[in-house]
Protein backbone atom coordinates (compact mmCIF):
# COMPACT_ATOMS: atom_id res chain seq x y z
CA UNK A 1 0.00 0.00 0.00
CA UNK A 2 2.71 2.39 1.07
CA UNK A 3 4.94 1.57 -1.87
CA UNK A 4 2.00 1.93 -4.23
CA UNK A 5 1.26 5.40 -2.95
CA UNK A 6 4.91 6.25 -3.26
CA UNK A 7 4.84 5.27 -6.89
CA UNK A 8 1.65 7.22 -7.44
CA UNK A 9 2.77 10.34 -5.62
CA UNK A 10 6.42 10.15 -6.54
CA UNK A 11 5.91 12.48 -9.45
CA UNK A 12 3.95 14.96 -7.36
CA UNK A 13 6.69 14.99 -4.74
CA UNK A 14 9.16 15.68 -7.51
CA UNK A 15 7.18 18.70 -8.63
CA UNK A 16 6.93 20.01 -5.08
CA UNK A 17 10.65 19.53 -4.55
CA UNK A 18 11.64 21.32 -7.73
CA UNK A 19 9.23 24.10 -6.87
CA UNK A 20 10.81 24.33 -3.42
CA UNK A 21 14.30 24.53 -4.91
CA UNK A 22 13.17 27.29 -7.27
CA UNK A 23 11.60 29.17 -4.41
CA UNK A 24 14.71 28.86 -2.27
CA UNK A 25 17.03 30.00 -5.05
CA UNK A 26 14.80 32.94 -5.93
CA UNK A 27 14.52 33.72 -2.21
CA UNK A 28 18.28 33.61 -1.77
CA UNK A 29 18.67 35.96 -4.75
CA UNK A 30 16.35 38.64 -3.32
CA UNK A 31 17.71 37.84 0.14
CA UNK A 32 21.25 38.53 -1.04
CA UNK A 33 20.09 41.95 -2.25
CA UNK A 34 18.40 42.61 1.11
CA UNK A 35 21.67 41.56 2.72
CA UNK A 36 23.65 44.15 0.75
CA UNK A 37 21.21 46.88 1.79
CA UNK A 38 21.16 45.65 5.39
CA UNK A 39 24.97 45.65 5.56
CA UNK A 40 25.03 49.30 4.53
CA UNK A 41 22.36 49.99 7.13
CA UNK A 42 24.35 48.39 9.95
CA UNK A 43 27.57 50.13 8.82
CA UNK A 44 25.90 53.52 9.19
CA UNK A 45 24.52 52.54 12.58
CA UNK A 46 27.88 51.29 13.82
CA UNK A 47 29.99 54.22 12.74
CA UNK A 48 27.63 57.12 13.34
CA UNK A 49 24.47 55.99 15.17
CA UNK A 50 22.42 56.79 12.11
CA UNK A 51 19.18 54.82 11.77
CA UNK A 52 18.57 55.53 8.13
CA UNK A 53 14.83 55.38 7.52
CA UNK A 54 15.55 56.46 3.93
CA UNK A 55 17.68 53.39 3.15
CA UNK A 56 14.94 51.95 0.92
CA UNK A 57 14.70 55.22 -1.00
CA UNK A 58 18.50 55.16 -1.26
CA UNK A 59 18.09 51.88 -3.18
CA UNK A 60 15.30 53.26 -5.33
CA UNK A 61 17.12 56.42 -6.43
CA UNK A 62 20.29 55.11 -8.21
CA UNK A 63 18.18 53.14 -10.73
CA UNK A 64 16.53 56.42 -11.73
CA UNK A 65 19.93 58.17 -11.96
CA UNK A 66 21.06 55.39 -14.31
CA UNK A 67 17.84 55.65 -16.33
CA UNK A 68 18.35 59.42 -16.61
CA UNK A 69 21.92 58.90 -17.81
CA UNK A 70 20.65 56.47 -20.45
CA UNK A 71 17.98 58.94 -21.53
CA UNK A 72 20.65 61.50 -22.41
CA UNK A 73 22.37 58.86 -24.54
CA UNK A 74 24.90 57.10 -22.32
CA UNK A 75 25.42 53.38 -22.99
CA UNK A 76 24.38 51.00 -20.18
CA UNK A 77 27.87 50.49 -18.71
CA UNK A 78 28.53 54.23 -18.61
CA UNK A 79 25.11 54.84 -17.09
CA UNK A 80 25.93 52.35 -14.32
CA UNK A 81 29.21 54.16 -13.66
CA UNK A 82 27.49 57.56 -13.60
CA UNK A 83 24.78 56.16 -11.33
CA UNK A 84 27.31 54.80 -8.85
CA UNK A 85 29.34 58.02 -8.84
CA UNK A 86 26.28 60.23 -8.42
CA UNK A 87 25.05 57.94 -5.69
CA UNK A 88 28.38 58.33 -3.86
CA UNK A 89 28.15 62.07 -4.27
CA UNK A 90 24.51 62.50 -3.22
CA UNK A 91 23.74 59.56 -0.92
CA UNK A 92 27.25 59.28 0.50
CA UNK A 93 28.97 62.65 0.75
CA UNK A 94 25.87 64.87 0.51
CA UNK A 95 23.87 62.83 3.02
CA UNK A 96 26.72 62.91 5.52
CA UNK A 97 27.64 66.58 5.22
CA UNK A 98 24.19 68.11 4.83
CA UNK A 99 22.13 65.93 7.13
CA UNK A 100 24.05 63.60 9.42
CA UNK A 101 26.88 65.90 10.51
CA UNK A 102 24.69 68.78 11.69
CA UNK A 103 22.19 66.42 13.36
CA UNK A 104 24.50 63.89 14.98
CA UNK A 105 25.15 65.82 18.20
CA UNK A 106 21.40 66.08 18.82
CA UNK A 107 21.05 62.35 19.37
CA UNK A 108 19.55 59.34 17.64
CA UNK A 109 15.88 60.28 17.46
CA UNK A 110 15.91 63.70 15.73
CA UNK A 111 18.33 62.27 13.17
CA UNK A 112 16.06 59.28 12.56
CA UNK A 113 13.09 61.63 12.08
CA UNK A 114 15.13 63.75 9.68
CA UNK A 115 15.86 60.65 7.57
CA UNK A 116 12.10 59.92 7.51
CA UNK A 117 11.57 63.40 6.08
CA UNK A 118 14.41 62.75 3.64
CA UNK A 119 12.64 59.58 2.50
CA UNK A 120 9.51 61.62 1.70
CA UNK A 121 11.66 64.20 -0.10
CA UNK A 122 13.46 61.64 -2.29
CA UNK A 123 10.22 59.83 -3.15
CA UNK A 124 8.45 63.04 -4.13
CA UNK A 125 11.45 64.34 -6.09
CA UNK A 126 11.59 61.15 -8.17
CA UNK A 127 7.82 61.26 -8.72
CA UNK A 128 8.03 64.88 -9.80
CA UNK A 129 11.20 64.91 -11.92
CA UNK A 130 11.12 61.42 -13.40
CA UNK A 131 7.81 59.64 -13.44
CA UNK A 132 5.01 58.36 -11.21
CA UNK A 133 4.76 55.26 -13.39
CA UNK A 134 6.89 52.13 -13.13
CA UNK A 135 9.65 52.05 -15.75
CA UNK A 136 11.38 48.92 -17.04
CA UNK A 137 15.08 48.61 -16.28
CA UNK A 138 17.68 46.62 -18.23
CA UNK A 139 19.18 43.62 -16.46
CA UNK A 140 22.90 43.05 -16.05
CA UNK A 141 22.18 39.32 -16.13
CA UNK A 142 20.91 37.93 -19.46
CA UNK A 143 17.50 36.26 -19.48
CA UNK A 144 17.05 32.49 -19.86
CA UNK A 145 17.45 29.33 -17.81
CA UNK A 146 20.46 27.38 -16.65
CA UNK A 147 20.59 23.76 -15.62
CA UNK A 148 21.56 23.36 -11.99
CA UNK A 149 21.57 19.96 -10.21
CA UNK A 150 19.62 18.64 -13.19
CA UNK A 151 16.90 21.30 -12.92
CA UNK A 152 16.15 24.43 -14.88
CA UNK A 153 16.59 27.55 -12.84
CA UNK A 154 16.19 31.14 -13.98
CA UNK A 155 19.56 32.60 -14.93
CA UNK A 156 18.37 35.91 -13.48
CA UNK A 157 18.18 34.44 -9.95
CA UNK A 158 21.50 32.64 -10.16
CA UNK A 159 23.27 35.63 -11.69
CA UNK A 160 21.92 38.05 -9.09
CA UNK A 161 22.83 35.65 -6.31
CA UNK A 162 26.37 35.22 -7.67
CA UNK A 163 26.93 38.96 -8.05
CA UNK A 164 25.55 39.70 -4.59
CA UNK A 165 27.70 37.00 -3.01
CA UNK A 166 30.76 38.39 -4.81
CA UNK A 167 29.99 41.85 -3.47
CA UNK A 168 29.54 40.58 0.07
CA UNK A 169 32.77 38.55 -0.09
CA UNK A 170 34.65 41.58 -1.45
CA UNK A 171 33.28 43.78 1.32
CA UNK A 172 34.01 41.37 4.18
CA UNK A 173 37.52 40.72 2.82
CA UNK A 174 38.07 44.45 2.69
CA UNK A 175 36.78 44.95 6.25
CA UNK A 176 38.63 41.99 7.78
CA UNK A 177 41.88 41.77 5.79
CA UNK A 178 42.89 45.28 4.74
CA UNK A 179 44.42 47.91 6.96
CA UNK A 180 41.75 50.46 6.08
CA UNK A 181 39.09 47.87 6.91
CA UNK A 182 40.63 47.34 10.35
CA UNK A 183 40.78 51.08 10.91
CA UNK A 184 37.10 51.36 9.97
CA UNK A 185 36.16 48.67 12.44
CA UNK A 186 38.22 50.35 15.13
CA UNK A 187 36.54 53.68 14.40
CA UNK A 188 33.15 52.00 14.70
CA UNK A 189 33.83 50.03 17.86
CA UNK A 190 35.62 52.62 19.93
CA UNK A 191 36.18 56.01 18.30
CA UNK A 192 38.02 57.48 21.28
CA UNK A 193 40.67 54.78 21.49
CA UNK A 194 40.87 54.61 17.69
CA UNK A 195 41.65 58.32 17.64
CA UNK A 196 44.36 57.87 20.28
CA UNK A 197 46.12 55.16 18.30
CA UNK A 198 46.08 57.40 15.24
CA UNK A 199 43.12 56.21 13.19
CA UNK A 200 41.66 59.09 11.13
CA UNK A 201 38.17 58.48 12.53
CA UNK A 202 36.44 61.25 10.55
CA UNK A 203 37.80 59.93 7.26
CA UNK A 204 36.76 56.39 8.20
CA UNK A 205 33.20 57.51 8.92
CA UNK A 206 33.05 59.26 5.57
CA UNK A 207 34.31 56.05 3.99
CA UNK A 208 31.43 54.04 5.50
CA UNK A 209 28.97 56.51 4.02
CA UNK A 210 30.62 56.12 0.61
CA UNK A 211 30.59 52.33 0.92
CA UNK A 212 26.90 52.46 1.83
CA UNK A 213 26.27 54.59 -1.27
CA UNK A 214 28.04 52.01 -3.46
CA UNK A 215 26.15 49.14 -1.81
CA UNK A 216 22.74 50.75 -2.37
CA UNK A 217 23.67 51.54 -5.99
CA UNK A 218 24.64 47.90 -6.48
CA UNK A 219 21.42 46.69 -4.84
CA UNK A 220 19.49 49.09 -7.07
CA UNK A 221 21.19 47.68 -10.16
CA UNK A 222 20.36 44.12 -9.14
CA UNK A 223 16.80 44.48 -7.86
CA UNK A 224 15.29 47.03 -10.24
CA UNK A 225 15.15 44.65 -13.25
CA UNK A 226 13.03 42.33 -11.09
CA UNK A 227 10.65 44.84 -9.50
CA UNK A 228 10.79 47.72 -12.06
CA UNK A 229 11.87 51.27 -11.25
CA UNK A 230 9.14 52.99 -9.26
CA UNK A 231 9.25 55.93 -6.86
CA UNK A 232 7.46 53.98 -4.12
CA UNK A 233 9.48 50.75 -4.35
CA UNK A 234 11.80 51.91 -1.57
CA UNK A 235 9.19 51.36 1.15
CA UNK A 236 9.14 47.57 0.87
CA UNK A 237 12.89 47.36 0.33
CA UNK A 238 13.76 49.57 3.25
CA UNK A 239 11.56 47.57 5.57
CA UNK A 240 13.03 44.27 4.38
CA UNK A 241 16.54 45.60 4.98
CA UNK A 242 15.52 46.81 8.46
CA UNK A 243 14.12 43.44 9.39
CA UNK A 244 17.16 41.68 7.96
CA UNK A 245 19.52 43.88 9.97
CA UNK A 246 17.67 43.33 13.23
CA UNK A 247 17.01 39.62 12.78
CA UNK A 248 20.66 39.00 11.96
CA UNK A 249 22.14 41.34 14.51
CA UNK A 250 22.23 45.09 14.39
CA UNK A 251 25.90 45.39 15.21
CA UNK A 252 27.36 42.70 12.99
CA UNK A 253 28.07 42.72 9.27
CA UNK A 254 27.82 38.94 9.01
CA UNK A 255 24.58 39.09 11.01
CA UNK A 256 23.09 41.44 8.46
CA UNK A 257 24.11 39.08 5.65
CA UNK A 258 22.55 36.05 7.36
CA UNK A 259 19.44 38.08 8.19
CA UNK A 260 19.06 39.24 4.59
CA UNK A 261 19.29 35.73 3.16
CA UNK A 262 16.91 34.38 5.81
CA UNK A 263 14.31 37.09 5.18
CA UNK A 264 14.51 36.59 1.42
CA UNK A 265 13.89 32.84 1.71
CA UNK A 266 11.24 33.14 4.44
CA UNK A 267 9.40 35.79 2.44
CA UNK A 268 9.36 33.65 -0.70
CA UNK A 269 8.31 30.48 1.11
CA UNK A 270 5.60 32.36 3.02
CA UNK A 271 4.19 33.65 -0.26
CA UNK A 272 3.99 30.09 -1.60
CA UNK A 273 2.93 28.11 1.45
CA UNK A 274 1.30 30.45 4.00
CA UNK A 275 -0.88 32.94 2.15
CA UNK A 276 -0.19 35.62 -0.39
CA UNK A 277 -2.28 38.06 1.65
CA UNK A 278 -0.22 37.62 4.79
CA UNK A 279 3.18 36.99 3.23
CA UNK A 280 4.38 40.36 4.47
CA UNK A 281 3.33 39.42 8.00
CA UNK A 282 5.66 36.43 8.32
CA UNK A 283 8.96 38.38 8.36
CA UNK A 284 7.35 40.90 10.74
CA UNK A 285 6.33 38.21 13.19
CA UNK A 286 9.84 36.78 12.91
CA UNK A 287 11.11 40.28 13.73
CA UNK A 288 8.92 40.64 16.82
CA UNK A 289 9.86 37.17 18.09
CA UNK A 290 13.58 37.89 17.60
CA UNK A 291 13.37 41.26 19.34
CA UNK A 292 11.50 39.78 22.29
CA UNK A 293 13.65 36.71 22.81
CA UNK A 294 17.03 37.59 21.33
CA UNK A 295 17.20 41.37 20.95
CA UNK A 296 20.85 41.32 19.90
CA UNK A 297 19.87 39.32 16.80
CA UNK A 298 20.77 35.80 15.73
CA UNK A 299 24.48 36.50 15.32
CA UNK A 300 24.81 39.81 17.16
CA UNK A 301 26.56 40.64 20.40
CA UNK A 302 24.60 42.27 23.21
CA UNK A 303 25.13 46.00 22.86
CA UNK A 304 27.47 47.46 25.44
CA UNK A 305 26.30 50.45 27.35
CA UNK A 306 28.08 53.61 26.39
CA UNK A 307 28.20 56.08 29.23
Amino acid at each position, binding site marked *: MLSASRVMFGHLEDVVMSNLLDLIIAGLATGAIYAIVAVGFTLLWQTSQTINFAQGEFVMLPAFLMLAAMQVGAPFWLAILIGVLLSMLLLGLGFKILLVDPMLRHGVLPLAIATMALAIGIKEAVKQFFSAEASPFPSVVPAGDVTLFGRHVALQSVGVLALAILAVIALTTFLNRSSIGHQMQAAAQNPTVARIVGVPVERMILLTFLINAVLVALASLLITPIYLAKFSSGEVLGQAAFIAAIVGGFNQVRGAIAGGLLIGVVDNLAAAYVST*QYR*AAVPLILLIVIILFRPQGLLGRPEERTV
Partner: protein
Amino acid sequence: MTAIPKYLRIALGLVIIVVLIVVPMNFNRYGLYILSQWAVMTIAAMGLNLTLGYAGQVSLAQGAFVGIGAYAAAITTTSGWPLIAALGVAIVLCFAIGWVLGYPALRVQHHYLAFVTLAFSTLAFLVFRNEDWLTKGIYGISNIPRPNVFGFATNRPLPFYYLCLGSLGIVTSAVWWLIRSPWGRAFVALRENPTRALSLGIDTRRYTLMAFAIGSALGGVAGTLYAPLTQYIDPVPFNLSLSLDLLMMVIVGGAGFFFGPFLGAMIAVLLPEWLRFTAGYYLMLYAVAVIGLLIYSPTGILGILDRMLAERRTKVASALRAVAKSRLETAP
Protein backbone atom coordinates in the same frame (compact mmCIF):
# COMPACT_ATOMS: atom_id res chain seq x y z
CA MET B 1 7.31 79.37 28.90
CA THR B 2 7.07 80.63 32.46
CA ALA B 3 8.45 84.03 31.46
CA ILE B 4 5.03 85.02 30.10
CA PRO B 5 2.83 86.32 32.92
CA LYS B 6 -0.11 84.13 33.80
CA TYR B 7 -2.91 86.59 32.89
CA LEU B 8 -1.32 87.06 29.48
CA ARG B 9 -1.24 83.32 28.88
CA ILE B 10 -4.88 82.94 29.86
CA ALA B 11 -5.82 85.86 27.60
CA LEU B 12 -3.86 84.36 24.71
CA GLY B 13 -5.56 81.00 25.23
CA LEU B 14 -9.01 82.64 25.27
CA VAL B 15 -8.26 84.60 22.09
CA ILE B 16 -7.17 81.41 20.30
CA ILE B 17 -10.29 79.55 21.45
CA VAL B 18 -12.57 82.40 20.29
CA VAL B 19 -10.74 82.54 16.94
CA LEU B 20 -11.14 78.78 16.50
CA ILE B 21 -14.89 79.11 17.17
CA VAL B 22 -15.73 82.33 15.33
CA VAL B 23 -13.47 82.51 12.28
CA PRO B 24 -14.45 79.17 10.67
CA MET B 25 -18.15 80.20 10.66
CA ASN B 26 -17.89 81.46 7.09
CA PHE B 27 -15.40 78.85 5.90
CA ASN B 28 -16.46 76.65 3.00
CA ARG B 29 -16.94 72.89 3.24
CA TYR B 30 -13.32 72.09 2.37
CA GLY B 31 -11.80 74.56 4.82
CA LEU B 32 -13.92 73.11 7.61
CA TYR B 33 -12.90 69.60 6.59
CA ILE B 34 -9.22 70.53 6.85
CA LEU B 35 -9.71 72.22 10.22
CA SER B 36 -11.63 69.21 11.55
CA GLN B 37 -8.80 67.01 10.33
CA TRP B 38 -6.38 69.25 12.21
CA ALA B 39 -8.36 68.76 15.43
CA VAL B 40 -8.48 64.98 14.94
CA MET B 41 -4.76 64.69 14.18
CA THR B 42 -3.95 66.91 17.15
CA ILE B 43 -5.74 64.45 19.44
CA ALA B 44 -3.75 61.53 17.98
CA ALA B 45 -0.49 63.50 18.23
CA MET B 46 -1.25 64.44 21.86
CA GLY B 47 -1.49 60.74 22.65
CA LEU B 48 1.85 60.10 21.00
CA ASN B 49 3.33 63.11 22.78
CA LEU B 50 2.31 61.52 26.06
CA THR B 51 4.06 58.26 25.11
CA LEU B 52 7.10 59.85 23.45
CA GLY B 53 7.45 63.34 24.85
CA TYR B 54 6.58 62.65 28.46
CA ALA B 55 7.35 58.97 28.99
CA GLY B 56 10.17 58.81 26.41
CA GLN B 57 9.01 55.67 24.55
CA VAL B 58 9.36 55.78 20.77
CA SER B 59 6.22 54.45 19.08
CA LEU B 60 5.71 54.00 15.36
CA ALA B 61 2.23 52.56 15.83
CA GLN B 62 0.04 55.58 16.57
CA GLY B 63 -1.35 55.53 13.03
CA ALA B 64 -2.42 51.92 13.56
CA PHE B 65 -4.35 52.96 16.68
CA VAL B 66 -6.09 55.72 14.76
CA GLY B 67 -6.98 52.97 12.27
CA ILE B 68 -8.27 50.65 14.98
CA GLY B 69 -10.39 53.46 16.42
CA ALA B 70 -11.70 54.42 12.99
CA TYR B 71 -12.65 50.83 12.13
CA ALA B 72 -14.25 50.31 15.54
CA ALA B 73 -16.35 53.45 14.99
CA ALA B 74 -17.19 52.59 11.38
CA ILE B 75 -18.22 49.00 12.11
CA THR B 76 -20.31 49.79 15.18
CA THR B 77 -22.03 52.97 13.94
CA THR B 78 -22.96 51.45 10.56
CA SER B 79 -24.69 48.67 12.49
CA GLY B 80 -26.72 51.19 14.45
CA TRP B 81 -24.73 51.93 17.60
CA PRO B 82 -24.43 55.54 18.76
CA LEU B 83 -20.99 57.15 18.36
CA ILE B 84 -20.51 57.47 22.11
CA ALA B 85 -20.70 53.67 22.43
CA ALA B 86 -18.25 53.37 19.52
CA LEU B 87 -15.95 55.73 21.41
CA GLY B 88 -16.09 53.43 24.42
CA VAL B 89 -15.27 50.41 22.28
CA ALA B 90 -12.37 52.23 20.59
CA ILE B 91 -10.89 53.46 23.88
CA VAL B 92 -11.10 50.07 25.58
CA LEU B 93 -9.74 48.25 22.52
CA CYS B 94 -6.83 50.63 21.94
CA PHE B 95 -6.02 50.81 25.64
CA ALA B 96 -5.85 47.00 25.85
CA ILE B 97 -3.80 46.57 22.67
CA GLY B 98 -1.53 49.46 23.67
CA TRP B 99 -1.01 47.81 27.06
CA VAL B 100 0.02 44.55 25.42
CA LEU B 101 2.22 46.34 22.90
CA GLY B 102 3.91 48.10 25.80
CA TYR B 103 5.33 44.80 27.05
CA PRO B 104 8.22 44.85 24.55
CA ALA B 105 8.98 48.31 25.93
CA LEU B 106 9.81 46.66 29.22
CA ARG B 107 12.36 44.39 27.59
CA VAL B 108 13.85 46.54 24.90
CA GLN B 109 14.39 50.25 24.53
CA HIS B 110 14.82 52.96 21.97
CA HIS B 111 15.29 51.83 18.40
CA TYR B 112 14.30 48.22 19.10
CA LEU B 113 10.99 49.43 20.46
CA ALA B 114 10.57 51.60 17.38
CA PHE B 115 10.96 48.47 15.24
CA VAL B 116 8.50 46.39 17.27
CA THR B 117 5.87 49.12 16.94
CA LEU B 118 6.75 49.51 13.26
CA ALA B 119 6.10 45.80 12.74
CA PHE B 120 2.81 46.09 14.65
CA SER B 121 1.78 49.00 12.48
CA THR B 122 2.28 47.00 9.30
CA LEU B 123 0.54 43.95 10.78
CA ALA B 124 -2.50 46.07 11.70
CA PHE B 125 -2.59 47.39 8.13
CA LEU B 126 -2.55 43.82 6.79
CA VAL B 127 -5.48 42.91 9.04
CA PHE B 128 -7.46 45.98 7.86
CA ARG B 129 -6.80 44.99 4.27
CA ASN B 130 -7.27 41.22 4.42
CA GLU B 131 -10.05 40.52 6.93
CA ASP B 132 -12.89 41.20 4.51
CA TRP B 133 -15.59 39.80 6.80
CA LEU B 134 -14.85 42.50 9.37
CA THR B 135 -13.38 45.48 7.55
CA LYS B 136 -14.72 44.95 4.01
CA GLY B 137 -11.06 44.85 2.87
CA ILE B 138 -9.91 47.18 0.12
CA TYR B 139 -13.49 48.21 -0.72
CA GLY B 140 -13.71 49.98 2.61
CA ILE B 141 -16.72 50.95 4.70
CA SER B 142 -18.91 53.71 3.31
CA ASN B 143 -21.93 55.70 4.56
CA ILE B 144 -20.58 56.09 8.05
CA PRO B 145 -23.22 58.20 9.83
CA ARG B 146 -22.44 61.39 11.71
CA PRO B 147 -23.77 61.49 15.25
CA ASN B 148 -26.45 63.53 16.98
CA VAL B 149 -25.01 65.37 19.95
CA PHE B 150 -27.57 66.42 22.59
CA GLY B 151 -30.21 66.35 19.87
CA PHE B 152 -28.18 68.42 17.39
CA ALA B 153 -27.44 66.71 14.09
CA THR B 154 -23.82 67.11 12.98
CA ASN B 155 -24.35 66.17 9.35
CA ARG B 156 -23.32 69.60 8.11
CA PRO B 157 -19.62 70.49 8.14
CA LEU B 158 -19.80 73.33 10.70
CA PRO B 159 -21.54 71.41 13.50
CA PHE B 160 -19.19 68.47 12.93
CA TYR B 161 -16.21 70.82 13.15
CA TYR B 162 -17.54 72.03 16.50
CA LEU B 163 -17.84 68.40 17.61
CA CYS B 164 -14.17 67.83 16.70
CA LEU B 165 -13.14 71.08 18.39
CA GLY B 166 -15.17 70.24 21.51
CA SER B 167 -13.58 66.78 21.65
CA LEU B 168 -10.17 68.37 21.28
CA GLY B 169 -11.05 70.68 24.18
CA ILE B 170 -12.09 67.78 26.40
CA VAL B 171 -9.00 65.74 25.53
CA THR B 172 -6.78 68.78 26.09
CA SER B 173 -8.16 69.36 29.58
CA ALA B 174 -7.90 65.67 30.41
CA VAL B 175 -4.26 65.49 29.30
CA TRP B 176 -3.51 68.80 31.05
CA TRP B 177 -4.89 67.30 34.26
CA LEU B 178 -3.07 64.01 33.67
CA ILE B 179 0.42 65.44 33.26
CA ARG B 180 -0.02 67.52 36.41
CA SER B 181 -1.17 64.50 38.38
CA PRO B 182 1.30 62.15 40.09
CA TRP B 183 0.94 59.92 37.02
CA GLY B 184 2.21 62.59 34.68
CA ARG B 185 5.12 63.34 36.99
CA ALA B 186 5.92 59.63 37.07
CA PHE B 187 5.93 59.59 33.25
CA VAL B 188 8.48 62.40 33.17
CA ALA B 189 10.56 60.63 35.82
CA LEU B 190 10.50 57.57 33.57
CA ARG B 191 11.88 59.58 30.68
CA GLU B 192 14.50 61.52 32.58
CA ASN B 193 16.00 58.78 34.72
CA PRO B 194 14.31 55.40 34.90
CA THR B 195 16.81 54.00 37.38
CA ARG B 196 16.27 56.84 39.82
CA ALA B 197 12.51 56.66 39.30
CA LEU B 198 12.61 52.98 40.23
CA SER B 199 14.73 53.64 43.31
CA LEU B 200 12.24 56.30 44.43
CA GLY B 201 9.56 53.62 44.50
CA ILE B 202 7.82 54.36 41.21
CA ASP B 203 6.51 51.17 39.65
CA THR B 204 8.25 51.80 36.29
CA ARG B 205 6.77 48.67 34.72
CA ARG B 206 3.23 49.78 35.34
CA TYR B 207 3.81 53.38 34.30
CA THR B 208 5.57 52.39 31.08
CA LEU B 209 2.62 50.22 30.12
CA MET B 210 0.24 52.95 31.25
CA ALA B 211 1.98 55.60 29.12
CA PHE B 212 1.72 53.33 26.12
CA ALA B 213 -1.89 52.39 26.77
CA ILE B 214 -3.15 55.94 27.40
CA GLY B 215 -1.30 57.29 24.37
CA SER B 216 -2.79 54.51 22.23
CA ALA B 217 -6.29 55.12 23.61
CA LEU B 218 -6.05 58.76 22.49
CA GLY B 219 -5.12 57.44 19.04
CA GLY B 220 -8.37 55.47 19.23
CA VAL B 221 -10.32 58.61 20.19
CA ALA B 222 -8.90 60.38 17.13
CA GLY B 223 -9.90 57.42 14.97
CA THR B 224 -13.47 57.49 16.32
CA LEU B 225 -13.77 61.06 15.05
CA TYR B 226 -11.90 60.34 11.82
CA ALA B 227 -14.44 57.76 10.61
CA PRO B 228 -17.52 60.05 10.72
CA LEU B 229 -15.40 62.96 9.43
CA THR B 230 -14.51 61.25 6.15
CA GLN B 231 -17.71 59.06 6.24
CA TYR B 232 -15.75 56.45 4.29
CA ILE B 233 -12.70 54.50 5.39
CA ASP B 234 -10.42 52.03 3.68
CA PRO B 235 -7.05 50.64 4.82
CA VAL B 236 -4.86 53.06 2.81
CA PRO B 237 -4.83 56.09 5.16
CA PHE B 238 -3.78 53.91 8.09
CA ASN B 239 -0.57 52.51 6.64
CA LEU B 240 2.85 53.06 8.14
CA SER B 241 3.19 56.56 6.75
CA LEU B 242 0.41 57.85 9.05
CA SER B 243 2.42 56.63 12.04
CA LEU B 244 5.53 58.31 10.64
CA ASP B 245 3.57 61.51 9.97
CA LEU B 246 2.24 61.57 13.53
CA LEU B 247 5.73 61.03 14.89
CA MET B 248 6.97 63.91 12.74
CA MET B 249 4.12 66.11 13.99
CA VAL B 250 5.15 65.51 17.60
CA ILE B 251 8.86 66.08 16.95
CA VAL B 252 8.33 69.11 14.71
CA GLY B 253 5.95 70.75 17.18
CA GLY B 254 8.25 69.93 20.05
CA ALA B 255 8.16 66.60 21.89
CA GLY B 256 7.46 66.99 25.58
CA PHE B 257 5.90 70.45 25.16
CA PHE B 258 2.21 70.49 25.96
CA PHE B 259 1.22 72.53 22.91
CA GLY B 260 3.75 70.84 20.59
CA PRO B 261 1.17 68.53 18.96
CA PHE B 262 -1.14 71.49 18.15
CA LEU B 263 1.62 73.19 16.17
CA GLY B 264 2.97 69.98 14.67
CA ALA B 265 -0.46 68.90 13.43
CA MET B 266 -1.06 72.41 12.10
CA ILE B 267 2.13 72.21 10.04
CA ALA B 268 1.46 68.67 8.82
CA VAL B 269 -2.21 69.28 7.93
CA LEU B 270 -2.36 72.96 6.97
CA LEU B 271 1.09 73.61 5.46
CA PRO B 272 0.47 71.26 2.51
CA GLU B 273 -2.75 73.23 1.84
CA TRP B 274 -0.93 76.55 1.87
CA LEU B 275 1.78 75.09 -0.36
CA ARG B 276 -0.83 73.76 -2.79
CA PHE B 277 0.03 76.51 -5.29
CA THR B 278 3.41 74.82 -5.75
CA ALA B 279 1.54 71.82 -7.20
CA GLY B 280 3.66 68.65 -7.10
CA TYR B 281 6.47 70.25 -5.16
CA TYR B 282 4.67 70.74 -1.87
CA LEU B 283 5.66 67.47 -0.19
CA MET B 284 9.25 68.06 -1.26
CA LEU B 285 9.18 71.53 0.27
CA TYR B 286 7.56 70.05 3.40
CA ALA B 287 10.37 67.48 3.69
CA VAL B 288 13.05 70.15 3.23
CA ALA B 289 11.32 72.38 5.80
CA VAL B 290 11.18 69.57 8.36
CA ILE B 291 14.86 68.67 7.86
CA GLY B 292 15.86 72.35 8.05
CA LEU B 293 13.85 72.85 11.22
CA LEU B 294 15.31 69.76 12.88
CA ILE B 295 18.86 70.83 12.02
CA TYR B 296 18.18 74.29 13.43
CA SER B 297 16.23 73.08 16.44
CA PRO B 298 16.01 69.34 17.18
CA THR B 299 13.51 70.10 19.93
CA GLY B 300 11.00 71.45 17.41
CA ILE B 301 9.25 74.79 17.04
CA LEU B 302 8.42 75.18 20.72
CA GLY B 303 12.07 74.35 21.40
CA ILE B 304 13.05 77.55 19.56
CA LEU B 305 10.53 79.55 21.59
CA ASP B 306 11.71 77.95 24.80
CA ARG B 307 15.33 78.79 23.98
CA MET B 308 14.44 82.41 23.17
CA LEU B 309 12.54 82.82 26.43
CA ALA B 310 15.34 81.19 28.41
CA GLU B 311 17.86 83.56 26.82
CA ARG B 312 15.69 86.56 27.66
CA ARG B 313 15.34 85.32 31.20
CA THR B 314 19.09 85.00 31.65
CA LYS B 315 19.55 88.47 30.14
CA VAL B 316 17.01 89.96 32.53
CA ALA B 317 18.56 88.09 35.42
CA SER B 318 22.09 89.22 34.58
CA ALA B 319 20.88 92.81 34.13
CA LEU B 320 19.28 92.65 37.56
CA ARG B 321 22.48 91.21 38.96
CA ALA B 322 24.51 94.02 37.39
CA VAL B 323 22.19 96.60 38.88
CA ALA B 324 22.34 94.94 42.28
CA LYS B 325 26.12 94.74 42.06
CA SER B 326 26.54 98.41 41.13
CA ARG B 327 24.24 99.35 44.00
CA LEU B 328 26.41 97.36 46.36
CA GLU B 329 29.52 99.07 45.01
CA THR B 330 28.09 102.61 45.10
CA ALA B 331 26.79 102.02 48.60
CA PRO B 332 29.40 103.42 50.95
